[in-house]
């Protein structure tokens, strides 16, 4: 979503505040911190779902998110999506995604995200899913992905829309 949609997205996020503020959660591994991993609820029969989070690297060396696993999915893939002349394109990313030194990698709607492939059951609003992420330098860490309503644009904390 663009800046023009921000006020309304923020409004949408506000309505979610009550449920999501309690779900705001961080994880640390090495020089990385992973903020607010979240996903959207899925329908019965829906085999795929996206996951989003912000990964901050306090270290002075670049790291890479290489892969993920989760008991709820046959596979966790890294994907990107882009809009190109009104056409939505999604692609699997191979070779991992860089987490820049003294910077951050945002997995968010409209860009990079993790993709649960072959979901073994629907993801239900309010639950948390364990996902183990593997980084090139920092190693592995298991985070709990918060499942939000299907219309969610991001997670909100401290008055900021998590877009």
């Amino acid at each position, binding site marked *: 979503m663009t800046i023009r949609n921000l006020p309304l997205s923020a409004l949408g996020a506000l309505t979610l505040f009550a449920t999501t503020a309690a779900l705001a959660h961080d994880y640390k591994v090495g020089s990385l911190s992973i903020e607010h991993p979240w996903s959207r609820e899925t329908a019965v029969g829906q085999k795929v779902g996206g996951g989003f989070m912000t990964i901050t690297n306090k270290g002075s060396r670049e790291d890479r998110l290489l892969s993920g696993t989760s008991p709820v999915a046959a596979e966790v893939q890294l*994907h990107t999506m882009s809009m190109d002349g009104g056409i*939505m394109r999604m*692609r699997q990313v191979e070779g991992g995604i860089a987490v820049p030194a003294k910077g951050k990698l945002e997995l968010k709607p409209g860009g990079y995200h993790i993709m649960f492939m072959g979901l073994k059951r629907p993801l239900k609003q309010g639950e948390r899913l364990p996902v183990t992420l593997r980084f090139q330098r920092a190693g592995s860490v298991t985070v709990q992905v918060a499942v939000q309503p299907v219309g969610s644009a991001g997670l909100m904390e401290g008055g900021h829309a998590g877009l």
Partner: protein
Amino acid sequence: MPDFEQPTGRSGLSRLRWAIWIVVGVAALVGLAILYDRARPLSDPASGYANAFGGPFTLTAPDGSTVTEKTLAGKPYAIFFGFTRCPDVCPTSLARMTRLRKQLGADGMKFNIIFVSVDPGHDKPADLGNYVALFGTPIMGLTGTEAQLAQIKKGYGVYSAKVPQPGGDYTIDHTAAITLMTAKGAFSGTIDHQESDTVALEKLKRLIA
């Protein structure tokens, strides 16, 4: 040499004038033809559907029933093409239509919301029913055979293409705009994913007016 060149120059110039007049004349005729074509009502049955936006289609609803352009006639609709594996644009667009409908209050039900899956390989009609039910407002989730989808995509100017992925599966590139159609099945406008809700609401108000 000048005696020879001058007359040729003059007749060349007059030939050029004629050529320009011919070009202008042809352009005017083409312009008139386009205006005439545009002036015709798009869904006029007498003109046939051949050149109209939208046009006939046949798809399947989650309960297995057949939905055609005739099923939809009589109520405006907002139609969007995607697939349930779509990571972001599809849920965001459908959630947005749900939100806009709520903002219209009682008028919100004066148009139908239709989601067409262009991924019959993964999305069965019943799956689509479960998917659209997540949004908490009536949305028609439709799909069809590859041939049926090719027909409606052509009618609605929608691009979609399968893109093989490394694991042997595939994803789908597709047009992300929401198309608004009148109760008579004529094109009314589009809602782009980058447009503000204010603009989108105005378009919907015009659609149901």
